[in-house]
């Protein structure tokens, strides 16, 4: 059942990092819908235009949970502009690849993060 997933993906699925919500988050982004089987919410805290803290909540398959988890590790401490440049492919590559059928439907973590950053920027227009 799990042979289609890499060891790294399984590690992030069984031991997900940074799960949860951030109260008073500076930005929140949600993507996906429950009918398709995947919903992700990313919460970010921003300090000096850098991601100071990031947490996620994900409903979905193992790939959805693992991509969310690894994305939080990839982005913590990063500048917002750098974080915006992280693509779905970057996330998949970081996990050592995703099964082809999962590349689209379950690989939404980067999108959720981008939404969270947009949300932050909208709220903090100067």
């Amino acid at each position, binding site marked *: *059942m*799990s042979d289609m997933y890499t060891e790294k993906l399984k590690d992030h*699925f*069984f031991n*997900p990092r940074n*799960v949860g919500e951030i109260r008073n988050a500076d930005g929140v982004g*949600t993507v996906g819908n*429950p*009918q*398709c*089987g*995947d*919903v*992700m*919410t990313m919460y970010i805290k921003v300090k000096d235009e850098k991601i100071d803290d990031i947490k996620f*909540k*994900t*409903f*979905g*398959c*193992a*790939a*959805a*949970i693992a991509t969310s988890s690894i994305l939080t590790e990839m982005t913590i401490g990063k500048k917002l502009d750098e974080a915006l440049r992280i693509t779905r492919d970057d996330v998949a590559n970081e996990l050592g690849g995703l099964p082809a*059928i*999962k590349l689209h*439907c*379950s690989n939404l973590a980067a999108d959720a993060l981008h939404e969270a950053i947009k949300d932050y920027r909208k709220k903090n227009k100067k």
Partner: protein
Amino acid sequence: MDYGASTPVDKEVIEEMIPYFDKFYGNPSSIHSFGREAFDAVEESRTKVADMICAKEDEIVFTSGGTESDNLAIKGIAFRNKKKKDNKNTHIITSAIEHPGVLSTCKYMEQIGFNVKYLPVDKNGLIDIGELEDAISKDTFLITIMFANNEIGTIEPMEKIGKIAKEHDVIFHTDAVQAVGKIPIDVNKLNIDLLALSSHKIYGPKGVGVLYVRNGVKLQTITHGGGHEKGLRSSTYNTPGIVGLGKACELGKTRLKADIDHLKNLRDMLINEVLKVEESYLNGHPEKRLANNAHFRFTAIEGESLGLMLDGKGIAAATGSACSSKKLQTSHVLLAIGLKPEEANGSLRLTLGRMNTKEDTEYVVEVLPEIVQNLRNMSPLWNR
């Protein structure tokens, strides 16, 4: 906990099979003594399989499995009837929750010009007998309804379907792959004309199955060749496989009552305990269900994740979630019983087998609620 997918071959079955790989390797169709021994073994198995479903031995056709048996039944009847001069015999009735062996064959029959009625099912997975009777027209030549559903375990009203089919002079085929060995089956009492069964679901080897064909029911072969199985299914006999299936049927018949009691005990314990989990539900019929089937759904979590988490704890399970299917499609059975895709995607199938113990179910009941809670804590759809 996934014996609905497949079962291990019983040790006694393996022992029975071994001599037919080398010692009695002959072709049952040969005239010499090597062939004769293999021939006798095939015929002995035929009797054992027939006994399992109260049929006669000359009504048993060996195939490669349940799917081939379904194909032979549906296409065999349809193509045979097409030879007749009148233009009737164009209508097939089936259900919306059939195994792909039947469902995909029916879709193909539509492509080549037949009409197929897919009967809907209620929230428990049962077809409506009145609706079945209403669907029968002068063109209907085949009713094909599964004995018991492979996902949610619901047992369809075989006796009533058989009675209606007989009254209307329509052939009745059933895919009994999940039912054999878990329900006593008498093809005569139930008026079944064609029945598909598979060896690897009843502790026999993979690659062998049977189509029961009632005496007098005529089929067109779909496998042309040397004329084996009265011309219905050409192909050199898979002697070890057939011997294994025969032994599995013999054991299955002897152990039927003990197996059913054992499975029901474990199943009911599983159901009672798992349903204590908040917002968990049983899919399928509360009573008319296979002795080994427990099928659940849990709000706000996804089935593939649940299945993999269980796998991580050494528990094998199945799910109707789209995310776990090759085509990313939600189970057609769960949608047919009226579940929304997000509900169907949170489903879990546990199917018990002869070798499961009370300790196994206790372990599942201990581990499962914690996994559900962990996934819910992670889920944005769980706000409690």
